[in-house]
């Protein structure tokens, strides 16, 4: 059954081809069936393969299927090959399963849209590219998936291309991620020239042999790979594109900018963990970036008014947690948080989508209100998602995954008290802005009226995701709770000894205390949100009306003004220079040359004035010159 692995990415690709070629001639239902069906089948196939992989794991827990040799130049021989191991299995199953739910959901969501088939074609292409990224055996194939995913995000953000703002957002997303991709490409060149291969496994093996830990090469390679990861996952330097990416339809935001694509960076670091282990300083940098980003995004999310932008900033913040986990060496904890985050963030987006759909594209939370009674199912599922996001202790999966990360941030030898403090503060802000959103949007007095209620095809995915969000946490319980660590055991088959070696020196009690503090902090956050935004919102207005308050609010609203920074530093000067030089200075150089010759012509023309005597004078002058030269030399 494992040999059908190549079919997993090909099914969505077939869906894409069919929709591309015959999409506009098919009825909407047929398009829906093909679109969602292909991803569904792929999800089913992944489940079957996963089951067989878990039931009887192939030798050293990995199965590689080589399709053909891509090309061969000198010693470098990349192959088109798919590799299934625990890490890619988790990623693939999340991508396909959540993708299928979102496709189902978008049948309902995008029903009245005119270019229905184009949407599904691009979504299918995205899923295929994401699977290629995840299953790719060597980094070059990963790069194919990586750029393909970037293209699909560009197409889907700019889906409603009539609106100029969407086009600019799409362009910005593609260009900013492309900056990261270029850094990654340079990293690949370094790896190819130094190690002669990009096949992930023997890349790590060779790196281990040839480079001792902390060597310049290892640091350079990992830094460049980190650049790519940061670009794609919207981390600190290159995070400006993610909030604007909300211009796309909500299912797109759910699938691409919450569950799957933005975590590609996390997957890359996890996949090449041996390289990062070789460069501890870069690994620590990953943690620091994660910490800073989660704080920055957390603050910005506090003041956002658009529901999707709140969720976008919260995604940046949660990925910051994953980076934090990877940075301190807690590989499986990072991946566990990825899984739970994929479920509850997709849930939140879809629920928000249902709300937006119902309020006829109204995204400002202050214009919603009192939706709990009008959309009960949406409210409860949204509440569960919010709970997981705020990591309400014991009942939500978010608690278990975020708590694990906080614990490792504190205890593992890469971690430090400061990282833990940042994580804790982030958790506090997360719960505040999450429940601020819940109270303002769903409770309080109703402002807008509901046009049409979301149909079953939209509600079923919500319920399923809610179920997953709640119960996915129990497969990885902390040590002091119960010996149930199914997820990390699975992950250890990939990450081997690099795993966390924390057991020896810290006791279960310390872990208990930390868990307690994390739980209390999130509850306090919920309470604070209740008092500030539901009981008497006047206090918040008072603060934001003060000049300092309103400046701070504006500053945070614009995402710490990174946009303006980058515009003034890079975009505007480049555009201005291009506009000035539109006429191509080098071209004027040649035109100058041409006019020089013409000027020579007019100067000489003056000599030909037609008079016989002038010509005879020319002759005489010539005679004098010749005589002079002949006689005197």
């Amino acid at each position, binding site marked *: 059954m494992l040999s059908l692995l190549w079919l997993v990415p090909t099914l969505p690709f077939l869906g894409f081809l069919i929709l591309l070629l015959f999409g506009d001639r098919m009825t909407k239902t047929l398009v829906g069936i093909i679109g969602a069906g292909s991803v569904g089948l792929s999800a089913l196939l992944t489940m079957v393969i996963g089951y067989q992989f878990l039931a009887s794991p192939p030798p050293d827990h990995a199965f590689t299927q080589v399709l053909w040799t891509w090309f061969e130049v000198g010693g470098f021989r990349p192959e088109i090959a798919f590799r299934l191991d625990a890490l890619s299995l988790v990623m693939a199953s999340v991508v396909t399963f959540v993708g299928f739910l979102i496709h189902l959901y978008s049948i309902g969501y995008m029903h009245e849209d005119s270019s229905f088939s184009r949407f599904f074609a691009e979504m299918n292409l995205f899923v295929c590219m994401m699977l290629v990224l995840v299953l790719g055996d060597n980094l070059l194939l990963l790069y194919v998936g990586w750029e393909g995913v970037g293209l699909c995000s560009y197409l889907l953000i700019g889906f409603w291309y009539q609106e100029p703002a969407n086009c600019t957002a799409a362009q910005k997303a593609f260009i900013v991620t492309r900056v990261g991709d270029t850094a990654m490409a340079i990293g690949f060149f370094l790896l190819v020239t130094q190690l002669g291969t990009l096949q992930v496994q023997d890349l790590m093996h060779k790196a281990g042999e040839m480079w001792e830990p902390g060597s310049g090469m290892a640091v350079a390679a990992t830094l460049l790979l980190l650049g790519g990861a940061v670009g794609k996952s919207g981390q600190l330097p290159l995070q400006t594109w993610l909030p604007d990416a909300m211009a796309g339809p909500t299912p797109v935001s759910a699938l691409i900018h919450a569950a799957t694509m933005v975590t590609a960076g996390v997957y890359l670091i996890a996949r090449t963990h041996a390289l990062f282990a070789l460069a501890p300083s870069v690994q620590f940098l990953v943690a620091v970036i994660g910490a800073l980003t989660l704080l920055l995004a957390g603050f910005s999310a506090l003041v956002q008014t658009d529901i999707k932008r709140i969720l976008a900033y919260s995604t940046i913040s949660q990925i910051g947690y994953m980076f934090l986990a990877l940075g301190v060496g807690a590989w499986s904890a990072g991946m566990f948080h990825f899984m739970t985050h994929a479920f509850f963030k997709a849930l939140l987006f879809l629920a928000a989508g249902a709300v937006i759909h119902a309020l006829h594209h109204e995204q400002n939370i202050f214009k919603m209100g009192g939706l709990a009674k009008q959309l009960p199912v949406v409210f409860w599922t949204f509440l569960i998602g919010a709970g997981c996001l705020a990591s309400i202790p014991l009942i939500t999966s978010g608690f278990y995954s975020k708590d694990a990360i906080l614990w490792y941030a504190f205890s593992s030898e890469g971690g430090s008290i400061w990282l833990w403090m940042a994580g804790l503060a982030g958790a506090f802000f997360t719960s505040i802005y999450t429940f601020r959103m819940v109270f303002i949007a769903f409770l309080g007095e109703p402002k807008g009226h509901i046009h049409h209620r979301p149909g079953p095809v939209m509600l079923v995915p919500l319920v399923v995701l809610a179920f997953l969000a709640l119960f996915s946490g129990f497969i990885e319980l902390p040590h002091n709770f119960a010996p149930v660590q199914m997820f990390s055991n699975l992950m250890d088959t990939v990450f081997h000894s690099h795993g966390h070696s924390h057991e020896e020196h810290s006791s279960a009690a310390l872990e208990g205390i930390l868990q307690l503090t994390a739980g209390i902090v999130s509850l306090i956050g919920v309470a604070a949100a209740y008092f500030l935004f539901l009981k008497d919102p006047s206090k918040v207005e008072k603060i934001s009306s003060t000049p300092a308050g309103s400046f701070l609010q504006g500053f945070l609203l614009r995402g710490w003004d990174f946009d303006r920074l980058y515009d003034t530093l890079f975009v505007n000067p480049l555009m201005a220079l291009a506009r000035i030089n539109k006429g191509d200075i080098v071209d004027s150089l040649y035109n100058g040359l041409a006019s020089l*010759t*013409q000027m*020579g*012509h*007019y100067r*000489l*023309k003056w*000599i*030909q004035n*037609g008079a*016989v005597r*002038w*010509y*005879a004078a*020319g*002759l005489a*002058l*010539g*005679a004098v*010159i*010749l*005589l002079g*030269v*002949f*006689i005197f*030399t």
Partner: protein
Amino acid sequence: MNSADIIALLPLILLTLATIAVMLAISFKRSHGLAAGLTALGFTATFLLLPAISRVAPHPVTPIYLVDTFGLFFSGLLLAASLVVTLLAYGYYETRSGFREEFYLLLLMSAMGGLVLVGSTHLVSLFIGLELLSVPLYTMVGFSRTARRSLEAALKYLVLAGVSSAFLLFGMALLFAATGSMDFSRILEMGRSGDASSTPLMAGLALIGVAVGFKLAIVPFHLWTPDVYEGAPAPTTSFVATVSKGAMTAVLLRLYLLAGGVIPDSTVTIFSILAILSMFTGNLLALMQNNVKRVLAYSSISHLGYLLVAFLAGGEYAVEAVTFYLTAYMVTSLGTFGIIALLSDREGEPELLQDYSGLFWRNPVAAGLFSLFLLSLAGIPMTAGFIGKFYLFAAGVDHSAWLLIGSLVINSAIGLFLLPPDCRFHVCRSRRKSHTNPSAGKRSGKPARADARFCGYFLVWGLPRVPDSSDPQRDNRLNSAYHSF
């Protein structure tokens, strides 16, 4: 005057007979066709006899005139050119009224002057040949008496040619005074061995240089060229551009060979400066010209500059380069002026570039050939002009005359500016008629077209063949040149 002398002098004798025949024909019954026919017959007969004469070559007829393969090759060249000019003249004057037959008389005599010049090894024959070539030319230039500009051109040419022949004479006198003899080889020997008193000798050479410069239209002496080319009727211009320059180059080549390919470096420097100047002046002035004949005049100045490069570069390839480049240049000039003659009619000649717009659609053959000739002028491959220029490059590079070669490259680039009239005006324009003389290009004289096609054919074929007349002493009779074309 034994039989060998007579055979050697046969070309001159035949041409004199032809002149007398044409004179008698005119006196009996004025018929344009007869006069032209007789002239053409005279030229072809002489031309065909040349191979026969070559068997007796080299044969000095009296110390002042030598008939050798070198002289015969160039005579053949000049005769062929004159034949083409006769055909052009016939086509040109067919539509005109007035006294036309005398033109052929002048043409015959002028051609004879050329032949004398080509074979001369003595100062006297040089002078006689030059004057015999020039004096009929004055009247040929002013032949269309009605046109004021033609008279003006004739007068200018007369005065300036007179001044230049005066310089020539005075130079010869000084040479004679210095060396006591008038024979080329003796003068050169005395000059080299240094026993002749140097100042009059050098002064004489300088003054002869002036006359040569005037005839070849090198820079300081070129001022007459554009006005004469523009004023003279098209067949005469083609004659001036080809035969008179060709004859003078032949004399220069003979002097070069007699001097054994060694030129004192002071002359080399001054003449390379003049060559570079003529290249630049010719190309720059031809740039923005609106009158086709003036464009061709200026480009002929630059072409002579290129020719000088071959001389000055010297070396094994020099003679071959000069011969081939001269032939290619003569054919191209005959072609271009032939087209102008072919397109002109009673009212006048198509002088302005606008007259040629849309020509391609009215008279594709003429336009095609005209583009071909202009391409050859610019030295684009697939044309004889390119091979000529290639030889110049080879000669220059062989003797690493970098300055000359550099200016040659720059000027070829400037020369490319000549192309726009070629394309913009008569190929690229749409079909609309040209307003100045609507009939331009409609009428096409059969003989003129025949000759134009001959030049076209020769041009394209010029490319792959390279004449092996690298050494005049070797048997490069006319047919060997033709054989290799």
